[in-house]
């Protein structure tokens, strides 16, 4: 059973439908106790870091997320969920975040006005380290991105894959022990995105 954390940041329908398509049972919850006891966690989200952190705080989910990740269960962050498991975001003047992975979230800055923000669309994900999440997925395959900020993990070994946008490379997949996180949306990335979710659903949480 996969526990999808619902903290009112964006639409969870696609994530739920993707796992249903794979035949993986899911429960969607905003209850800290259910998150704490989960055997496998998906932490999605779309939107702004400050309001997401405020909502997580009001639902008492921050401690539950730290506790469940600390127990070593497989944990997958997606998009905003990936950003706010870092320590801090530059968004909204600076927001302290959950801190499952050391590092920061930064805003894209481009001198060339032709580079559109947000990055919206399919971009190649180039592998830096092997990981069970990538099983059966050709290197440099494209996945679907929508974001104006990017994760910048402090520890180079925690960058599992990178993506180039506007001449700049950022970490598009992060991983530390039982925690993995993608800046792109696997649930909207077609067959290869479904494969990544299916890999996560069977992953034992070890690299």
């Amino acid at each position, binding site marked *: 059973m996969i526990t999808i954390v619902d903290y009112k940041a964006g639409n969870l*329908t696609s994530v739920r*439908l993707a796992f249903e398509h794979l035949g993986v049972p899911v429960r969607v919850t905003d209850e800290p106790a259910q998150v704490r006891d989960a055997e496998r966690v998906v932490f999605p989200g779309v939107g702004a870091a400050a309001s997401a952190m405020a909502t997580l705080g009001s639902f008492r989910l921050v401690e539950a997320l730290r506790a469940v990740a600390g127990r070593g269960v497989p944990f997958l962050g997606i998009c905003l969920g990936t950003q706010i498991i870092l320590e801090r975001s530059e968004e909204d003047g600076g927001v302290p975040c959950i801190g499952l992975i050391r590092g920061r979230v930064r805003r894209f800055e481009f001198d060339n006005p032709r580079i*559109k923000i947000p990055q919206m669309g*399919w971009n190649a994900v180039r592998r830096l380290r092997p990981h069970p999440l990538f099983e059966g997925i050709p290197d440099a395959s494209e996945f679907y*991105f929508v974001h104006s900020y990017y994760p910048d993990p402090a520890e180079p070994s925690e960058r599992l894959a990178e993506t180039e946008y506007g001449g700049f490379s950022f970490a598009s997949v992060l991983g530390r022990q039982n925690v993995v996180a993608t800046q792109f949306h696997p649930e909207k*990335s*077609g067959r290869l995105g479904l494969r990544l979710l299916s890999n996560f659903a069977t992953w034992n949480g070890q690299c």
Partner: protein
Amino acid sequence: MLTKRIIPCLDIRNKRVTKGVKFQNNVELGDPVTMAAGYCADGCDELVFYDITASAERRPIDIEMVKEVARAIHIPFAVGGGISTVQDMSRVLLAGAEKISVNSLAVMNPAIIAEGARAFGRQCIVLGMDPVRAGDLVRFPSGYEVTIRGFRERTGLDALAWAKRAEELGAGEIVVNSVDADGTRRGFELALTRLISEAVRIPVVASGGAGSPAHVVEVFRDAHADAAIVAGMIHTGEYTIQAIKAAMTEAGIPVRRVW
């Protein structure tokens, strides 16, 4: 490198995909879910569905169809037609759509763009606009006037000014559908697409006039579109998405290669 997107457009009338020229002479083409799944298998990057009779019939969008599509495909899709409130937007997104397209509604009530962006994030709000060539350059400095209600009404809005205003209000993307080119299959309106794409920092989707892979190559290479909508040229079976992408690759335009 971010790839350029190919987006099939499915106009829905009475639960069936139809295709007309300038909203006239509609011919029925097939079942939306089956067609969407087929285009996904052929490598399309995104889809857009317009419920073209919802507004005229004063009924809400067909939510059951949106749910069926969301169960069948796992790539982003936008939905337009029959949306008049933030509650309508919410229902469409919760049914599994990634984006909502607003067109006539946004002209009548521009605040809906800001309200939608605030409620769901700007990436969910697509402004669709249907500009027509206008000779009066004093009133329409860009040379294009925005029309609404399926090209039937003129609005007095300059297309470029409206695009910039929509970006300020919070639109996450703009679909520029040329009235003059729509359904002609003689190529996109390149000048219009380039004008708007160069003036805003959000992605611009070119629409109207695609008749061959060469037209699609042109709109990316010469008009800086971020994505292109195709309809008739693939609905008739004359071209496949793969054929379009092969032409793009040949021209050095980045495309998604594996799906």
